[in-house]
């Protein structure tokens, strides 16, 4: 019975420890909220601003990341309220420009010649990271692919392209094939990278993974993907001739003063200024120079060759 003397305190101690440990678990930062007080949600109306759109070559996030600082700079420089909008597709972008939802469009030359048909006018073009205001398309294949060494070797092979409307990523290369007497029918397969963004990367990855024999990409893409892919295992089979680089266009009926303000602010950007260099680098460009509609006639010629004008005309008819 002497044991009870020790047993009871032991039991109580253990119970105390258990309760203490249990209490530790319940210790929470509690905020009281009365769920009964409710309000209707109103869809927030966007504030009136100059809209700026980047052709959805990449995901919205990448688009935002690349152009966010540039837009901030332009707002600050012009004193205008500028807001970046994100169309989901090339087509949506074009339509939004036509409808006036996009005031300033930054697009590839192919898209430009289409929106130019809707009244948009080019006012600036970029200098590519390579230093040239032009860019080219490239045909790439795995370095260990023994069957593809030159353009003609691509006949009968599977082709992954960026997008049917991609300039460097498809149309320039398609033009190059046509110049070599190769038509779309000569390939085993022509596939386009899926999804809304990151299409250039996807095309490189598809070849790298061996899913397709060769790919058509925009010049400079290999630099972007060098962190994801061992580019030493990729070889460039051929390059197209240079075409004028991406273009800034103002929608039809945009106040010329605003266009002027923005253009001037753009032209002021210089790689010599560290802050501005940072903005340009993030946007993936080296500088912005003035441009006009005629600069893109070579593209119009290519479109002609590829029969895209018919497609555009057809499209217009459907719309009407």
């Amino acid at each position, binding site marked *: 019975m002497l044991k009870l003397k020790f047993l009871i305190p032991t039991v109580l101690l253990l119970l105390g420890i*258990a309760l203490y440990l249990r209490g530790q678990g319940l210790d929470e930062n509690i905020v*009281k909220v009365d769920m009964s007080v409710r*309000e209707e949600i109103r869809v927030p109306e966007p504030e009136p601003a100059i809209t700026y759109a980047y052709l959805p070559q990449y995901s919205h996030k990448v688009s935002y990341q690349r152009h966010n600082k540039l837009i901030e700079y332009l707002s600050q420089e012009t004193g205008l309220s500028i807001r970046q909008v*994100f169309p989901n597709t090339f087509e949506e972008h074009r339509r939004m420009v036509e409808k006036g939802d996009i005031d300033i469009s930054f697009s590839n030359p192919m898209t430009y010649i289409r929106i130019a048909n809707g009244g948009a006018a080019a006012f600036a073009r970029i200098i590519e990271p390579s230093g040239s205001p032009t860019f080219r398309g490239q045909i790439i294949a795995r370095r260990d692919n023994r069957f593809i060494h030159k353009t003609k070797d691509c006949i009968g092979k599977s082709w992954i392209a960026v997008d049917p409307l991609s300039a460097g990523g498809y149309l320039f290369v398609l033009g190059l094939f046509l110049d070599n007497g190769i038509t779309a029918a000569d390939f085993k397969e022509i596939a386009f990278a899926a999804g809304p963004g990151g299409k250039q990367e996807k095309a490189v990855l598809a070849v790298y993974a061996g899913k397709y024999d060769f790919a058509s990409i925009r010049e400079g893409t290999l630099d972007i993907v060098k962190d994801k892919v061992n580019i030493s295992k990729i070889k460039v089979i051929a390059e197209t001739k240079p075409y004028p680089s991406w273009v800034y266009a103002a929608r039809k009926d945009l106040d010329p003063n605003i266009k002027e303000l923005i253009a001037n602010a753009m032209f002021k950007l210089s790689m010599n200024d560290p802050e501005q260099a940072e903005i340009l680098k993030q946007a993936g460009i080296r500088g912005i120079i003035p441009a006009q509609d005629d600069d893109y006639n070579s593209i119009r010629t290519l479109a002609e060759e590829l029969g895209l004008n018919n497609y555009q005309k057809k499209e217009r008819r459907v719309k009407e």
Partner: protein
Amino acid sequence: MIFLSRLRFRTKINLGLTLIVVFTALIIALFVTSMASEALVDQTRKRGKVLAGNLALRAEDPLLSTDLLQLESMVNEVKEADDEIIYAFILDDKERVLASTFREGFPVQLREANSSGKQINAIMIDTGSQKIYDFAAPIFISEKNLGTVRIGLSRAGIQSVVQNLIFAISALTGAVLLVAVLASTHFARRMTFRLGTLQKHAVDIVRTHLGPEISNESTHENNHNSSRKNLKGDEIQELTETFDAMAMNLESHIEDLEITETNLTRQKELLKTIINVSPDYISLIGPAYTYLAVNKPLAKHIGKTEEEIIGLKDEDLFSTHEALVRTEEIRKVLNTGKIINKETREQDDNYSTVRWFHTIRVPVYSESSKIIGVLSTSREITELKSYQAQLIQSQKMESVGKLAGGVAHEINTPLGIILGYAQLLQDDISPDDQISKDLKIIEKQARVCRKIVSDLLGFSRQTESEKTEMCFNNSILEVVQLVSHTFKLEHIEISTKLDDRFPIIHGDPEKLKQVWLNLLSNAMEAIDDQGSIQITTILDISTMTITALFADTGHGVEPQKIGSIFDPFYSTKPVGKGTGLGLSVSFGIIKDHGGSIEAISPLPKSILAGMNAPDDTGPGTLFKVVLPLDAISAVEQVMNTGSV
């Protein structure tokens, strides 16, 4: 406590086990539920963070493109994907709700309840009816906060899991408890049954072997139940009481045993003392011829301690010959069972004294009448032998005396007639005549014969003696005075050391004088050229005797002849020089007086030293005459001297 001790052993075990199981279950439940809920909360936090983070990532593009429909569908998808998600909503950078799962209006307070920094923040929201873990995940692009994703996870799920856990533990505890109680009941039943058996056995032992049955009748079959009511404890208590009783009985038995042991020890000591006190040599030899026990005298005789002797054999203790004899005797007793009874003479060497022993060897039987040893007792009978020899001597002397006495008596009468007629014839014849001379020779020789006959009669005590009270010293002094002159001529000194208490004896003075004269003449003849004779008288009141010692410095008597010197006609002198009857006659006279006479040669040194003996004297002889004191004179002696 008393109540507890009164419970049955089985109940105690069940109670103890139940307490242990319940207590263990309680502890486990507390710890496990605490740890489980902690882990679940932690898991929920992680899940909430992951969900919120994922939603924030997925919401980036729709947020940028202000695709409210997609945002709406995204939050709804998240909510539908998980039952525990109470709500999900997305705020823009200005804290405006872009999409939410609330259909019936948005709770105003909820929007500001939680806010994210650069990390996902988790808080607990108490709505009053339930508790919700709220997670706020920021949507960051290029270090710019575009908005916040908020997700609310119900805590009810965790609680239900914990409750299920508690229920499971409780159910398991119940099951274990049931099994434990069943097992313990079975176990306790077996144990109490065995305890009961043990107790019954213990009681039986107490009753059968250790004395009277214990007063408690708990083990008695008929009284089992009724007696149980009187008991204060359980089976162990009963067993304890039984063992107490057994212990008490054992204690009393042990006391008895101790008393018995003490008695035995005392008896053993007594027996040992008796054996040791006995002058006999006692030993016990086992069947392996080894000593099992010896008494002190034997040990002393052998020259070892008792402990040293035990375990040894005869060959280890005695000379080869003696050991052989002893071993053979023991073998005989062991094999045949016959008792050996013998007398042995022992003499270490030619010059040492002879010792006689009377030895008895008896077999010792075990309970199964098997001989297990030999008990030997050996008694020294040297003295007895000496008395035996003396007895034979005296009987011999008596026979010779009777014979000589008879012959002398017969010869005495014709000798008287011869003497008478010889004297008568001399009266008739002239003294110068040859016939007269011859008659004188006849008369002289007849007188010699008569003297011999008279001595013979004296030796055989056939002469009448007239005993009167006389002074012992005076009778000696008279003889000394008579012969001293003659002895001086022979260069022999006579000295006397007489006891001045003048002992009075009852005796014949003339015959005693004859004895003294005999002894002195013997002494004189033993002394060749010159020497001394010392006469000492010693009165011993305690033994009522008077002793006369006649010591001379003569040539002594050879040891082997000393036993024969009192024989009649024994003489060392040449033929014609002596009759050899002197000492025999003296022996007869002393014996007639109830005393004793013995000769000791050589002379004891203590006496020789007190005599002025020349250097070249022989070993000398001591004659010791002991005579009893006259009873009346002894009393007078005491009165006169005042000593005892």
